[in-house]
């Protein structure tokens, strides 16, 4: 690997990819289906999503493994297929990058879906064990770095990083999901971006940020707080805004170009890597590519 994520982040604003789940639904994934099973059932469709993002200008594609930890897979009766599904996903992403001739592969890791007390009964050991298994499977197949996303509990994200660090020195990017409250932005558990980012960087995250939960407008509003909290490159991946109903159908109030303009504004305010979360597709990423290309170099 000539240039990893750390070097790329120093060099330029990195364009990540957009939503995977909604793109797979557009390709026929049944509502309620297990997204990660498609890595073995319909690998060509997963690969097509990666390729569409690379073509739209993404510098990074994320493996289709957001819910591929054994605790989340167990809810689809696939808890014993962790290794197979993660390895297949890493292979598919690598093939897409190789055929496009550019791009990095990020091994995507999402939360277990199980909370620790008092909210739930999960233990740090339970988390650690499944994150080690998942990250190891991804690393064995060859990802360029790990991307933790959508964690709503700082402690679970911290455990995931320490789990990876028991066997791998690959770079780790860590994004939490924050809600906009009257007093500012907080995780569901009540942690501020300042506390969260400090903890994640101390554990060795090379980039930290916010994804999901809010649209680009709210994310833009959070930028000052996020930027001040991050001592390493800041990742910003909002959802595709809030939709409205027209003729009985859900349509995004926010078009791809408006999303792109707002996300580009977060770059002006200091975001170092940007992309889209739920509801964004290749059109959003292509629009964002064109905004980034029009920006003066930093």
């Amino acid at each position, binding site marked *: 690997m000539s240039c990893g994520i750390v070097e790329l982040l120093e060099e330029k604003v990195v364009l990540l990819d957009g939503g995977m789940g*909604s793109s797979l*639904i557009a390709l026929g*994934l*049944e*509502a*309620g*289906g297990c997204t990660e099973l498609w890595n073995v059932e319909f690998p060509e469709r997963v690969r097509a999503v990666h390729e569409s993002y690379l073509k739209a200008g993404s510098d990074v594609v994320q493996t289709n493994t957001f*819910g591929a930890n054994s605790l989340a897979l167990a*809810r689809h009766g696939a808890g014993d297929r962790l290794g197979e599904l993660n390895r297949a996903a890493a292979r598919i992403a690598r093939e897409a990058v190789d055929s496009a001739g550019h791009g990095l592969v990020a091994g995507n890791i999402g939360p277990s*879906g199980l*909370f620790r007390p*008092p*909210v739930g009964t999960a233990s740090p050991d339970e988390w650690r064990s499944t994150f080690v298994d998942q990250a190891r499977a991804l690393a064995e197949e060859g990802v360029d770095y790990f991307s933790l996303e959508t964690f*709503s509990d700082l402690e679970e994200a911290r455990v995931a990083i320490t789990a990876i660090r028991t066997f791998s020195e690959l770079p780790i990017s860590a994004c939490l999901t924050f809600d906009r*409250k*009257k*007093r*500012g932005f*907080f*995780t*569901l*558990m*009540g942690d501020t971006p300042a506390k969260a980012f400090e903890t994640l960087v101390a554990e060795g995250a090379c980039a930290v940020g916010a994804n999901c939960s809010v649209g680009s407008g709210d994310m833009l509003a959070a930028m000052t707080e996020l930027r001040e909290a991050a001592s390493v490159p800041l990742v910003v991946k909002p959802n*595709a805004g*809030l*939709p*409205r*109903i027209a003729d*009985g*159908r*859900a*349509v*995004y109030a926010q078009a791809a170009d408006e999303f792109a303009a707002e996300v580009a504004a977060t770059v002006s305010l200091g975001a170092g890597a940007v992309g889209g979360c*739920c*509801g964004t597709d290749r059109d959003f990423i292509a629009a964002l590519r064109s905004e980034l290309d029009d920006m003066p170099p930093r």
Partner: protein
Amino acid sequence: MDERNLHERQSQAILDGEAELAVELARQAVEMGANLGDCVDHGFAKGIREVGRLWEEGEYFLPELVQGADAMKAAMAILRPEFLKDGIEDRQGSRVLLGTAAGDIHDIGKTLVATILEANGFEVVDLGKDVSNEAFVTAVAELTPAVLGMSALLTTTMPRHGEVIELLRERNLREDVKIVVGGAPLTHRFAEEIGADAYAANAMDALGAVRKLIGVKA
């Protein structure tokens, strides 16, 4: 201890999420022959309403909310048998069925709704996330809830709500259940268009909507 003092301590126990203390204060109320309805209205329930308000304000977060709700449930578990003994109906029979739409794994909002409803005395059956249309309809037929609450965080999954309502109509079950829908992308107008009975913007709103639909006072 006079009853007003007791109510204050009961409310505070919920606010502090102290389940053991809440249980002790519920027992104390029973033993001293206090008016248990007042203990709920001016004591425990006052506390859980305040927890809900602090959550809305962004002063309390999920751990505080859950601890408050757990303390509330623990206190109600002591008081409920006493109410039944006295022939006072509690909210049994006010069963609420909840779930997140098929294809949608965002269930935190829905879980909050379940927590708030349970803390306020409703019997909640939580079907979880990623619930198929058929599973919703089957559960309505089998569990005969008074209210069905459906959640979605994605524009791609919110149409499932309308499909479930349509299925309920086809099976002649629609008239048997009131329907509340909620979730970030939803609106009043969407709820109306798909034929739901109410829209709830958040967990406290959902509590109000459920109460209104089945005619229970706060």
